[in-house]
């Protein structure tokens, strides 16, 4: 069902865990189906210096979360803002059609974090 890369990210997810000193935390999830993801970013010089995630969800959701963190770690915020759900699925080498929506939470959580970060900055430097 899942390809080797997905299985690898599910079995050995990169950047798992909490980050107590995160600069910003993003969240995504559907209250309906209950998938939930938290993403923690450490930002230095407008770059993602460190990143962690926590996910409640299926294999595809976990693998997508892991994949995403790997994709954007070290990227500038501008670059990270371009990353879409399709990019994550593509980088994983594809997901089963029925599972595509499960990968959505990853990019969604990142975008949520970036948006909050922009808002936070705005309120700090008005």
């Amino acid at each position: 069902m899942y390809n080797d890369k997905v299985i690898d990210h599910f079995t050995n997810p990169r950047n798992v865990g909490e980050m107590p000193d995160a600069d910003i935390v993003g969240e995504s999830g559907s209250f309906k189906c209950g998938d939930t993801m938290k993403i923690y970013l450490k930002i230095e010089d407008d770059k993602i210096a460190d990143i962690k995630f926590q996910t409640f969800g299926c294999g595809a959701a976990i693998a997508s979360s892991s994949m995403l963190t790997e994709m954007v770690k070290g990227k500038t915020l501008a670059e990270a803002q371009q990353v879409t759900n399709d990019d994550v699925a593509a980088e994983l080498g594809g997901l089963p059609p029925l599972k595509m929506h499960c990968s959505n939470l990853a990019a969604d959580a990142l975008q949520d974090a970036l948006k909050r970060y922009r808002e936070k900055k705005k309120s700090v430097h008005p």
Partner: protein
Amino acid sequence: MQKRQVYLDHGATSPLREEAFEAMLPYLQDKYGNPSSMHSSGRDARHAVERAREQTALALGAEPDEIFFTSGGTEANNIAIKGTAKRTARARKKKGHLVTSSVEHHAVLNVCKELADEGFQVTFLPVDRYGLVSVESVKRALTPETFLISIMTANNEVGTIEPVAEIGALARERGILFHTDAVQAVGQLPIDLRDLKVDLLSLSAHKFNGPKGVGALYVRRGTPVEPLYGGGGQERGLRPGTENVAGIIGLARALELAVEELPEKTRWLQALRDRLIEGLLGMGDVVLNGHPSSRLPGNVNVSFNYIEGEALLLGLDLEGIAASSGSACTSGSPEPSHVLLAMGLDHQIARGSLRLTLGRGNSDADVDYLFTVLSPLVKRLRKMSALYPGQG
């Protein structure tokens, strides 16, 4: 190194047992006649099918002419429910009322929904937190228009055994037909149709180590039911089409043996099941789904808090363990199991369910292996979970 393979999904399907396979073999090789042909190879096939009917009847406490072979449990359920609805609507010249439960298999539930769309009155009874239908609730649901009650013998997801003897007695008393989907029960629970007040009963061979794609419907003599298909009159018109001869023979042989071995099997299966449940509950933040005692001897269903079921399945699968889940993500539907939701579980707990169904061939070693794999997996997934409070 060949990975260890442990099959804990007998509720989904079970391996074809050797004896059934061997009984089928001649009918997949040189005994290929069509039971409707009058020449000797046709008569051999006819004879074999009728012998299988006798075996099946005997195993269930029925008469041979009460057994109708079908292409599986789904078809048996459809014929039982739509076939009686059609007949009753024709006879009474109006669409009546039927009673079912909200934890039925989709092969009952979706049939009832379709009948509701067509103008029949349908009551979908709620269940308690164990998945039990109460006889009282059935009684309260009955109206003068009720022609059929359809309640499963045992639930496929949580293993809860429903009070079909009592419901059957009630139905008989009121002159209402009673159908039971016994697909999960046949070969796992003792069933004697001489005692049980059931008019229609569905079964499917692949659930008791018979072949896939063949089942049967028991129809008590005199029960008004119409065929859904037109054709050449096979199965006395109730299910036309050239018979799946080998499949029918496999069904009968597997059933005969399952019933013969039932007392012995129930004992060890239940012991294994209870050991498994105990071990799982000992892992913490785990709840048992389904009834603690009125439960199929091979069924275990638990929910792991903070974990999604499909992720669990995937982790187990990677270690060679086959299981199933009521997680929405295993079905591709947006909702987790309708059974778990009907029992009042919240979404998150429903999504964290793991069903382990034991059967022929399983052993203590399988359970040990499961624990070895499952413990670290649960820890890992919880640690990863956005919902887990016990971290940091």
